[in-house]
């Protein structure tokens, strides 16, 4: 493997890790606060991608630069509407009930959304690469790469990482979320509306999944099944990091992204195996994840 390929692999890994991080951190956040493994997370990712493609294909006639706000708008719409719906009508009646039922009802949401996606957007691949083509290519150590993938995507991921950290640790709303996570009853007793906190957290997590999808949409063709693939992948990342670990998720996403990128260049057939093999190995040694502690720290 020569140095050009190595640099290419690193860049691939970083841009991939940025997308995976966005989705995984949403999953982790939802689990950390609501204690629910959201199986529909991959569908939110897919819906985010499809809606973003629809928006940007529609707005590109007006001005190609408007496709960027379109991507953001799509993810917020999906997060608020689909995420809000799932939390309000499916999860809310089940708080305090069996974990299995909470997990399964999001599985039901996954089945429905997977089907709706095929009904709404069809099964033909959709391309909407405008935002990718708009930004110039840049040269990194002599390797040409799209700046969308090596600057914009990691930039958004880092902004999300630090934004979430700041929001949870430095703002009042974040403190409220942490309080509910720590002790729901006590926080309700001092007047916090835990129901609302759950709702908002779920919408934020869902928006992050949709944002991951929206940002991924220019870089890849949208096909049925992308949601089902993404949910296990983001789950592998979140579980390897330790559910509820935000910084840990970022590092794990980077680790898995880079490993996967190098494997693609060296031994392409093992590409899909990498994240799951890492997950098995890590969970066997540390069932609470690389960055989790025995009493799983929440967020």
């Amino acid at each position, binding site marked *: 493997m020569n140095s050009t390929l190595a640099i290419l692999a690193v860049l691939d890994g970083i841009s991939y890790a940025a997308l995976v991080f966005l989705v995984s951190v949403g999953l982790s956040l939802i689990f950390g606060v609501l204690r629910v493994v959201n199986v529909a997370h991959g569908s939110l990712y897919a819906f985010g991608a499809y809606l973003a493609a629809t928006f940007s294909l529609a707005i590109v006639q007006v001005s190609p630069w408007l496709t960027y706000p379109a991507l953001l708008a799509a993810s917020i719409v999906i997060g608020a509407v689909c995420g809000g719906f799932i939390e309000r009508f499916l999860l809310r*009646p*089940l708080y305090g009930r069996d974990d*299995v*039922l909470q997990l399964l009802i999001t599985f*039901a949401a996954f089945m429905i959304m997977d*089907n*709706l996606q095929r009904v709404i957007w069809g099964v033909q691949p959709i391309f909407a690469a405008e935002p990718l083509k708009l930004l110039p290519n840049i040269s990194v150590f002599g390797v040409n790469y799209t700046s969308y993938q090596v600057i914009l995507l990691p930039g958004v991921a880092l902004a999300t990482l630090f934004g979430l950290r700041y929001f949870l640790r430095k703002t009042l709303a974040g403190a409220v979320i942490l309080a509910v996570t720590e002790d729901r009853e006590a926080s309700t007793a001092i007047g916090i509306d835990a129901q609302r906190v759950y709702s908002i957290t779920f919408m934020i997590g869902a928006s992050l999944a949709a944002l991951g999808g929206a940002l991924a949409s220019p870089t890849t063709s949208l096909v049925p099944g992308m949601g089902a693939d993404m949910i296990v992948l983001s789950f592998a990342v979140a579980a390897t990091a330790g559910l509820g670990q935000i910084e840990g998720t970022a590092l794990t996403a980077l680790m898995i992204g880079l490993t996967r990128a190098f494997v693609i260049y060296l031994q392409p*057939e093992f590409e899909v195996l990498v994240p799951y093999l890492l997950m098995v190995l890590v*969970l066997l040694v540390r069932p609470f994840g690389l960055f989790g502690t025995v009493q799983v720290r929440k967020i």
Partner: protein
Amino acid sequence: MAGRIKPITAVAVIFFVGSAVAPLFVASWATLFALILAKGVVVLGIVVLLQAGQVSFGHAMFFASGAYTAAFWGKYIGTGDILLYLALGGITSTVFGLIVGLFVVRYRGIFFGMLNLAFSMVLWSLLEKMFSYTNGADGIRVARPGLLGLSFTPENFQYVILYTSLLIAVTSFYGVQRYLDSPLGHMLRAMKSNETRLEYLGMSARRVLLIGYVISALLGGIGGALVSIIQQIATPEFGFWTKSGEFVFIAILGGGAHAFGAFAGAAMFECVRFYAAAHLADSWQLILGVVLIAIILYAPNGLIGLRQRYGQSKQGGR
């Protein structure tokens, strides 16, 4: 168990007799019922684990290992026999279940589910990517095997496989019932209510769970071999996480408290899929999703729980 036949046993008997007789009148039902019974066997394994309060979100790996055992035999060794496929599928998945089980029984709840998922995804990616051995996503065709040296025409074969499935289903149903009624089965249930006390009584909870886990892996493998024979193909999708989700779904749909829930759930699931796919083209998944939501929200004990809800209260939840 004193002489009185429980209503649920009666329903089970009616169901098994019905699946033996009904396809004689409607030929297209033979495959449908065979599939229901085979899936029911797999889901029995999920029900066994549910007794201990554990949910495996990776059980499709045993299903796939059973199916691929049959497929590999056909691809590399030659013509097979239904009984041979079932025996081999069962052995493979039992060994596989024992190995994986040794690791996963150390964990509970979400961690148990996660580790199972991780193992099953490793198997799935191997099946998907080892193209030269597994034909990748296309899967391996399973040629129609004989039974005890006899070979059959396609018309007869669907009945042969139906009655084989029925025999396997009844045997596993009876076996699982006996197991759950035995001291070992009661210990498995005790894990759900209070694992610490079980340990205080001098039992190893891990061992109890491992036995349950291996049994459920065996059922998964046999069911997988059956389905691969019925559908005449084994694909990586058999081991994908959505398949695992489907099995858990069927268990909850039927009701995880009783072994018959597996077959009740499988019957409902496959019938909805069969008829919705025929009449509403591409929306069977949507319908099943809505059914699942309705069951979870309004009848969390599943189909067989509905009877208990309106009937008398029975002791022990059975």
